[in-house]
């Protein structure tokens, strides 16, 4: 009975949780965290059940309010969003656990109920995007998650956070306009908003300028959301000035859901033959992704602030995902989708570590981290593992996605992107190794000596998620066949055999 309603439950639950958190927060602030935690854990369990159902019986369809599609809103869960949903909620659980301790030092106490409420609203939006099969519904959830994200960026004590949140809001609204216009254009031509229905109706209309315009609007709108170079300008500040737990959420779930929406629109609403044959936009897309990969890394090398460095590294890594998708070869797309999981795990881990440094020692600058490995050995070790994964050292997860994307580029004869991927590994090594050298092989600077010697590994609530993600970097690398079993059928479905 209840099992039939799981697709909608995964969205409704955090919405109810958000209200419950707000009400409970009035009574006692300490109740907020358990409620939020319980909500995300239950959601994660639901997502695993959904994923296993999809793997056994194929895509699930759920008609909201029993209105039949294409008139009603339909929720569809196939391998792709089953996978993305599980990844995102896994990170949500860990971020929520991490937030409990880490926000104490970064957020005013009276804002704690608001924090958890907005966090659950963010989760609502993100899960909604993941499960919906309706284009307009997707837009609504995109706005919910974006508004929640703007609020979360501004919730900290830093004054600059307000400015970065505002920039984020402006850019996000521009992006939303493009997406909404895209949806409008498609609706004018087809009269439907259901994705599956659109995919049926659209092919004869591919010659239409309106459809092509809509397509370009989608690409631009979602490129801003995913911070594709050179539309990434909102990202570094938003990541740098938001509280650590929020940075983790932004870099893992918010950016990943944007990529998911992009894949969905590229491959499920439109068809691969359209994007490959009718419009050469993928060519441009690949080059932009390549520019992101190299540009993001180069700028990251120049950073002195750890979180900002990681933010630019995100720009670069998102480029990997988009390059994999842009090459539109089945192996490369597999690599791109795999990198959604991989980058979420690695970057989540790294931002949590950056937050842990701030929490225990107050240090944000890379230069001041000298010698911190002695007093925070576990945190530093986790950093090394995650950094190795970012560089793409086997047998970590980062290597696996790199392998697939490079192999896909090779198969489709685009040698230049193979070189881009390999060269970027080196650039990544440069900026991560700088941090590792400072942490392990240098004496503390006098000004920070006190902060370094008194630093300790963070409390268990923060350390546990860090170590889980670091372990995941290696485990998913060795047992990469587990995520592949989910991804490959989807890719085969849209692009044909591997």
């Amino acid at each position, binding site marked *: 009975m209840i099992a039939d309603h799981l697709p909608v439950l995964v969205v409704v639950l955090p919405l109810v949780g958000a209200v419950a958190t707000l009400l409970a927060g009035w009574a006692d602030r300490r109740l907020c965290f358990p409620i939020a935690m319980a909500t995300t854990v239950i959601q994660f369990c639901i997502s695993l059940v959904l994923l296993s159902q999809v793997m056994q019986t194929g895509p699930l369809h759920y008609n909201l309010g029993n209105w039949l599609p294409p008139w009603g809103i339909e929720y569809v869960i196939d391998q792709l969003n089953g996978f993305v949903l599980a990844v995102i909620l896994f990170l949500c659980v860990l971020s929520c656990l991490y937030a409990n301790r880490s926000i104490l030092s970064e957020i005013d106490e009276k804002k704690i109920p608001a924090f958890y409420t907005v966090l659950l609203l963010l989760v609502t939006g993100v899960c909604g995007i993941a499960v919906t099969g309706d284009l307009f519904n997707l837009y609504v959830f995109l706005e919910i998650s974006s508004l929640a994200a703007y609020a979360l960026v501004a919730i900290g004590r830093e004054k600059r956070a307000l400015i970065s949140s505002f920039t984020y809001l402006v850019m996000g609204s521009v992006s939303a306009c493009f997406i909404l216009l895209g949806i409008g254009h498609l609706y004018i031509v087809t009269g439907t908003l259901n994705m599956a229905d659109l995919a049926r109706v659209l092919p004869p209309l591919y010659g239409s300028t309106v459809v092509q315009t809509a397509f370009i609007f989608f690409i631009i709108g979602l490129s801003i959301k995913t911070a594709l170079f050179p539309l990434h300008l909102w990202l570094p500040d938003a990541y740098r000035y938001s509280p650590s737990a929020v940075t983790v959420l932004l870099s893992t779930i918010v950016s990943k859901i944007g990529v998911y929406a992009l894949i969905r629109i590229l491959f499920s609403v439109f068809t691969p033959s359209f994007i490959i044959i009718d419009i050469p936009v993928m060519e441009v897309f690949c080059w932009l992704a390549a520019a992101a990969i190299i540009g993001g890394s180069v700028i990251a090398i120049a950073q002195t602030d750890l979180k900002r460095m990681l933010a630019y590294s995100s720009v670069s890594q998102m480029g990997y995902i988009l390059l994999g998708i842009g090459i539109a070869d089945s192996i490369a797309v597999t690599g791109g989708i795999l990198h959604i999981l991989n980058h979420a795990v690695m970057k989540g881990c790294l931002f949590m570590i950056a937050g842990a440094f701030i929490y225990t020692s107050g240090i944000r600058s890379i230069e001041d981290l000298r010698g911190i490995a002695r007093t925070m050995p576990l945190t530093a070790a986790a950093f090394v593992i995650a950094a*190795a994964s970012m*560089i793409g*050292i*086997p*047998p970590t997860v980062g290597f*696996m996605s790199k*392998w*697939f994307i*490079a*192999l896909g580029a*090779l*198969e489709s004869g685009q040698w230049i992107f*193979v070189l881009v991927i*390999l*060269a970027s*590994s*080196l650039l990544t*090594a440069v900026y991560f*190794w700088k941090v590792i*050298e400072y942490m*392990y*092989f*240098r*004496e503390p600077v006098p000004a920070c000596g006190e902060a370094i010697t008194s630093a300790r590994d963070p409390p268990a609530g923060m350390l546990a998620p860090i170590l889980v993600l670091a372990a995941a970097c290696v485990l998913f690398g*060795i*047992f*990469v*066949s587990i995520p*592949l079993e989910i991804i490959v059928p989807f890719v085969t479905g849209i692009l044909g055999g*591997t």
Partner: protein
Amino acid sequence: MDQTSVLPVLAICIPAVAAALILIFRNRPVIRESWTILASFATLACVLSMLPLVFSGTEPYAALFPILPGLSLSFRADAFALIFALTSSGLWVMNSFYSIGYMRAHHGENLARYFFCFAVAISAALGVAFSADLLTMFIFYEILTLSTYPLVVHAETEEARMAGRKYLAYLLTAGIFFLLSVLITYYLTGGTAFAAGGILTGHGSALLMTILFITFLIGFAKAAWIPLHSWLPSAMVAPTPVSALLHAVAVVKAGVFGIARVVFYVFGIDMVSALGLGLLLACIASFTIIVASMMALTQDNLKKRLAYSTVSQLSYILLGVALLTPSGIIAALIHIPFHAFMKITLFFAAGSIIVMTGIENISEMKGIGRRMPITMLMFAIGAIGVCGLPPVCGIITKWYLALGAIEAGQLVFLAVILTSSILNVLYFFPIISTAFFEKPDADTGIHEAPLFMLVPLTITGICSVLLFLFPDWPFLNLVTMAESVITGSVMP
């Protein structure tokens, strides 16, 4: 004939497990170092236990779970692999004792990190030896790079950090080329498993194969061929046991071993000779042999001189590979263990001098042979061996290498070998004469190093002589087995 067996995996796992135990007991020096010793003996025993199997014609083989579709982590202990594995694990035993003596006397800090990284590096070196496909080899090759980096920067001085950066810059860049080569190989053939006679035949044009060969060579920058050698002399800033085992044996031999594997088991002799790539490699090797020997002449720092000597000697192996003749192959493969024994003796001696006197420069070593007679005697044995003179095992290499050059009809390489021998004598004999025949400046009361250091050094020195007297078991037998497998595939 393959026989499924856990032994190769076990040999790789023992040092890895020891590394974990070292980390757990990081604050208990005696227990921590006992694990190193125990693991080194256990690893050697494990490798030795594979010898009878291999001699009887069965090859222990293990394929673990697939890491990528169609590519599983796979290991094979053939004769070829055992040459390298036996050398590394055997000398690890010696080096473990020496390390304890040296590190306690000289670098007291961060010993847990030192022994941890050392064990991981040995595990990775064995992984390179036993890997049965390119991807597995690549994985361990990269782990080897990363695990040795903390050893290079162990002293945490500015010089050490710069050397560390150079080390990573060279070797990670090389790793990228290696990865590119693996990708291309996989793309062309749909697999990466080694097979005697090569797997690339009939896949791709001559130009592509030449490019691939070159990217492979760059990928194996650990072989320190000129101009990709300069990380090695810089890495001498590491503690001497690291220079001795890793930068004379495990790391650099992983590079030449990799090149040999690729030439014989990925490209195959036929293709390499048909495309003239053997000649290319032989020219690179000859250039390296001569130039590195000349560079060694100019070094006053003993470890640096030994490092350039290593660069030169590694290219003996490459030259042997490049000749593509039976004797050349034997020379190449036999030089892997022989050079290891001789060079580790030399480094052990250099390390003992540093610990007892603090002297690193040859010009300051006047009369040191009178104060540390056993150490310097062993040094002399190692030096004689590297020069290729009897009664030390180096001459066996030189003999086969010369034969190989004649078999290949390339007399110019014979000249290279002879020139190099002269240069070797020129850069080693001044050290010996300074040490034994010049008068010390003052009586400083220097004496032999502690037994923890002196005994391993004596053993490796004596072994170098014994390997000359009795080269057959196990090394020459293994080498001839490997050679017949490699050449047998050419002439069925």
